[in-house]
């Protein structure tokens, strides 16, 4: 009898330690890793220049597609812009720029001054479409293949290391 009670108490103790061990070792920060390997669905982005929506066919035109969320008011977007200009030279890759909560005139000026690395330009005036892509701040970029499968997600400005990583992924094909 005493033995059973002791066993239950030891069992509960081990359970408590186990629960704390699991929860304290768990990364509680938001991570976008869970999106990698998933297919993009519900792609619904409005063209920047025309009054129409970009279709899946446009997205599937090239082997790889980089969807970059940017705005003229976003300072880190200026930092990553030269990387995007370099990526624009890659033949295996198309780049879509999604202009996020921005004024059209400011966005145009931004591209005029720094160059336009985008093959397609879209806009998300209220930021609602970006939720479909799991975006929570800009700049963010998503690398997908022509099956609309997410290969990599970059939170924050693209760095030289990111550039090399993207290049290595698209060259493999």
């Amino acid at each position, binding site marked *: *009898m005493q033995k*059973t*009670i002791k066993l*239950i108490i030891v*069992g*509960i103790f081990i*359970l408590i330690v*186990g*629960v704390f061990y*699991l*929860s304290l070792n768990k990364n*509680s*920060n*938001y*991570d*976008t890793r*869970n*999106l990698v390997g*998933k297919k993009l669905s519900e792609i619904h982005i409005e063209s920047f220049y025309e009054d129409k929506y970009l279709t899946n066919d446009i997205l599937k035109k090239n082997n790889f597609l980089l969807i970059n969320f940017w705005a003229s008011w976003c300072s880190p977007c200026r930092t990553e812009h030269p990387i995007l200009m370099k990526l624009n030279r890659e033949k295996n890759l198309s780049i879509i720029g999604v202009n996020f*909560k921005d004024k059209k005139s400011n966005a145009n000026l931004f591209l005029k001054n720094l160059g336009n690395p985008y093959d397609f330009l879209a806009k998300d005036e*209220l*930021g*609602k479409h*970006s*939720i*479909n*892509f*799991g975006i*929570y*701040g800009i700049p963010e970029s998503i690398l997908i293949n022509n099956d609309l499968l997410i290969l990599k997600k970059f939170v924050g400005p693209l760095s030289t290391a990111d550039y090399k990583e993207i290049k290595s992924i698209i060259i493999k094909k």
Partner: protein
Amino acid sequence: MKFKLLTLLIVFFLFEVHASSSNVEQNQIFKNIRCLVCQGQSIADSNSDFAQTIKLVIKDKIKEGKTEKEIYNFLIEKYGQWIVYKPPMNGSNFLFWLFPYLIFIAGGVVIIMFFKKKENN
């Protein structure tokens, strides 16, 4: 005249009830969604850009007729389970959900055994 007035009042009352109930549901969802760019705040408590956008999306989903569960599932699919304060039970967190019940059962077993022992004595 009286009949018309009564009908108008009933329609107005029904409209009010509907409006307040959908508002309650909306606030309930806002309170269960974590603001990912804030420190320990739900989107109901935050005025951040991210929280405002998520609120707009949730309002749209409610208008589309999506249920509370469907809205949570949509956001979990996009941002992971971290976005909801009350994540659904699954393989990785079932222990956390079962823990209180296990403690309750174990406590019950201990009490029963204690009384049985007392009876035997």
